């Protein structure tokens, strides 16, 4: 089962992983990655109050579905679930979930990392940081481009 969801509400990582393996006996490895909103980014600045995630409806789901297709072409996946939230998210809350399932762990680990690296640079989402004194759009990181580039 391959699932991509874009939603404002929270997700349950354990329940999503369980759904991928339910009733199957061929899956030997499940990797679950959850990305959370953290508050430690401000170097001497005001603490983060919240992130607001803007997205391109339609394209967000289509682009992540293309990335899942690319992952399936590279590794023997038996299932994958990607969920990305949008809207206002406070520190400690979930932002993104990637679950991959395969017969062996190597493919599940690699595909999960590939999906996260590519999602960061290709999925149409933008983070607005809300601090006590300012609101600023997060700048893209060169390190994210480098992380995505190593899979090419």
């Amino acid at each position, binding site marked *: 089962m391959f699932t991509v969801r874009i939603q404002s509400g929270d997700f349950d990582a354990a329940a999503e992983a369980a759904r991928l393996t339910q009733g199957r006996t061929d899956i030997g490895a499940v990797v679950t990655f959850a*990305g959370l909103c953290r508050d430690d980014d401000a170097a001497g600045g005001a603490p983060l109050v919240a992130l607001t995630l803007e997205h391109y409806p339609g394209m967000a789901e289509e682009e992540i579905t293309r990335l899942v297709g690319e992952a399936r072409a590279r590794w023997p996946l038996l299932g994958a679930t990607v969920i990305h939230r949008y809207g206002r998210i406070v520190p400690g809350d979930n932002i993104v979930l990637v679950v991959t399932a395969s017969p062996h762990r190597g493919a599940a680990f690699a595909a999960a990392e590939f999906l996260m690296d590519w999602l960061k640079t290709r999925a149409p989402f933008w983070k607005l940081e809300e601090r006590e004194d300012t609101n600023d759009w997060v700048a893209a990181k060169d390190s994210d481009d480098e992380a995505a580039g190593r899979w090419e």
Partner: protein
Amino acid sequence: MKILYFAWVRERIGLAGEEIAVPETVRTVAELAGWLAARGEGYARAFENPRVVRAALDRRHAKPDTALAGASEIAFFPPMTGG
């Protein structure tokens, strides 16, 4: 043509999207960005550094030299920061 703007491109232009009749002389993504930049102050600020503005044509990532031919929707936005 339907044109969409996201994040700080949307804020600078002051619109989430608009329907514009693009002249036939405007053939590529980069040419459209340049043409839009001449429409007003907000547009000029949004496209002041065209190299950092990304585009998607009919919901697929496009390059500056991608031809607009036949596309019905284009979006302009900053580098993505999701995940």
